């Protein structure tokens, strides 16, 4: 039973300069089962973060989410939003969007009341910036606890806050309670963010690049902490990262995103295996330096070319221009039609013409 199901989500933004839609998320489907960790990997700009923000109703750009279904538990998080958005489509491409911003925003706030922060909690990259620099971490943690839990009184909320600071392994929590974010290390700030997110005892945790912007050793400690908290609380997690090692350590299942689409999804061990099924996954894995590469000081294997800009996404496979597996047999199809996300093993899907046949 999935806790969060995203179906055919499209989140577009409009570039006034280019008078065109930036198709950040273009038909993404994901499902996160209760209690599991779904890792989403992909290069920068592949639409990972926008997918997560769409699920949390935090898209501020325009036109934002224009199509799709997001089911969270028994709720439909996009319920009634279609009334505020009118989409003009031609040949399967969206040509124009008319949106009632005010009504849309109001509807999102209505849908998200009691969900955001309470049911879906988020942790962000660069934790120091995600805390209010002028308030002590204690104040902010207490605010979150009083907002979302039954600990409404000041002193009981403080007790609860200290309890959570301890649970995220912060040394001398009583001292840190009165610290400002600028007096703390990045890793410590991230621990506070994790405490804030988990203190509401949400059913879904969205971790958006939780280790980005931290030192390598601290990254490892944070991943360790997330793993421990995961086994303690069993919380369902949507983990977004471009760091494959982080996803490998934490995720049960993995979805690989490329240029706004999911190109492969399945159990972590099957997707992130050395001879990966999808050429993009294989290229991603090859670009991670292993001990051998570092020892022999050989060059890192970068993926040739660049991510296609999502304004003029190619008609065919989005990875076609950079793919090193393409054969003459499928070249024609790769160039002109997008491959379907086909199931190649139970629960393992991949979007490649080589596998679709």
């Amino acid at each position, binding site marked *: 039973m999935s806790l969060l199901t995203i179906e055919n989500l499209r989140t577009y933004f409009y570039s006034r300069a280019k008078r065109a839609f930036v198709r950040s998320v273009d038909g993404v489907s994901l499902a996160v089962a209760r209690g599991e960790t779904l890792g989403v990997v992909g290069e920068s700009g592949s639409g990972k973060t926008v997918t997560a923000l769409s699920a949390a109703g*935090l898209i501020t750009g325009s036109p934002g989410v224009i199509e799709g279904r997001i089911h969270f538990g028994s709720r439909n998080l996009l319920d009634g939003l279609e009334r505020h958005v009118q989409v003009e489509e031609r040949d399967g491409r969206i040509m124009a969007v008319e949106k009632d911003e005010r009504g849309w925003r109001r509807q999102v706030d209505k849908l998200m009341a009691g969900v955001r*922060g309470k049911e879906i909690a988020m942790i962000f990259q*660069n934790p120091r*910036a995600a805390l*209010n620099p*002028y*308030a002590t971490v204690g104040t902010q943690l207490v605010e*979150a606890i009083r907002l979302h839990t039954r600990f409404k009184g000041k002193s009981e909320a403080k007790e609860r806050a200290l309890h959570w600071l301890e649970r995220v392994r912060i040394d001398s929590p009583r001292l840190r309670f009165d610290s*400002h974010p600028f007096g703390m290390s990045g890793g410590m700030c991230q621990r506070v963010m994790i405490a804030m997110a988990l203190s509401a005892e949400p059913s879904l945790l969205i971790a958006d690049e939780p280790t980005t912007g931290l030192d390598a050793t601290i990254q490892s400690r944070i991943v360790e902490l997330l793993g421990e908290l995961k086994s303690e609380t069993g919380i369902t997690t949507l983990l977004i990262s471009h760091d494959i090692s982080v996803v490998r350590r934490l995720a049960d299942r993995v979805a690989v995103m490329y240029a706004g689409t999911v190109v492969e999804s399945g159990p972590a061990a099957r997707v992130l295996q050395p001879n990966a099924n999808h050429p993009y996954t294989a290229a991603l894995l090859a670009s991670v330096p292993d001990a051998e590469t570092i020892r022999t000081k050989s060059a890192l294997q970068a993926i040739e070319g660049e991510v296609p800009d999502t304004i003029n996404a190619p008609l065919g496979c989005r990875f076609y221009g950079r793919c090193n597996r393409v054969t003459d047999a499928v070249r024609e199809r790769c160039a002109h039609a997008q491959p379907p996300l086909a199931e190649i093993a139970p629960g393992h899907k991949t979007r490649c013409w080589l596998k679709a046949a």
Partner: protein
Amino acid sequence: MARYVQAHMTVAGIAELPLFRRAETLDLLYIGYGLTVVVLVLASYLAGAFGWLPHDAQAINVALLNAPPFTPGHALGTDFLGRDLLSRLVLGIQAYFLPGLLSVALAIVGGSVLGVLAGWRGGWWDTLITYLANLLDSFPRLVLILLVIAAFKPDIYYVMVVVGITSMPVIANLVAGKIAFLRQKSFIEAAHALGLPGHTVILKHILWFNCRALLVIQATLGMAEAILIETSLSYLGFGVQEPTPSWGNMVLSGANYFLQGNFWPSTAPALAILATILGFQLLGDGLNNLLEGKRRR
């Protein structure tokens, strides 16, 4: 030369210290002086309001014109009509106190509201408010005040309403700028993700946590500004009218005798103005350093 001393306590001890123990000496001096001025102003206001004065401020004594300080019975001497200077100085606060507060409150509240509208709502609110602010800024303030006096009457409250309104754009600009800067920050996004309602984010996380020092500074500066404006107007003869004393018209009336050697009747109120304005400014500065939690050099 800087000296760094390890306190004889654990690090935990420092965080538990009360706010004033963590401050630096200079800030405490500023704040102490500022608070002394505030207390003196408050005491003078109450003394004036209840008539607890050493002499009747309007009582003319022709036998004792322009008496120097420390004349028996007149600690600060008398003015050109033999009126007691100390009593007139104390009573002079009446001209500033409530009107000054009015202008400050008007400027802070109005400025914050406009600033939030411009910075948070953006769009045509921003355009409109920026346009109005520029319009107001391009108009010399003193001329505007004189226009209002000409249109209505030379009442200090009218003047202070104008001062309050003309101070709004500055505060609105500061607040809007701060908000525009803050909304790029991920902690505002994080606050939304936490499920905090919009008004909590604006009032608590933006105005209270991030703008309070700015608003305190602006309030104290505004008070100093109000006193200066009233003084200038009184000196020009448009402010509080004789025989009601204000520091501005005391400087004016004393100035006629300044070059004859009787410099005291205009120097005393001038020094009072200096000390008071300095007090408000230093108070703002000291509070800023203390409340911000860190010194910006």
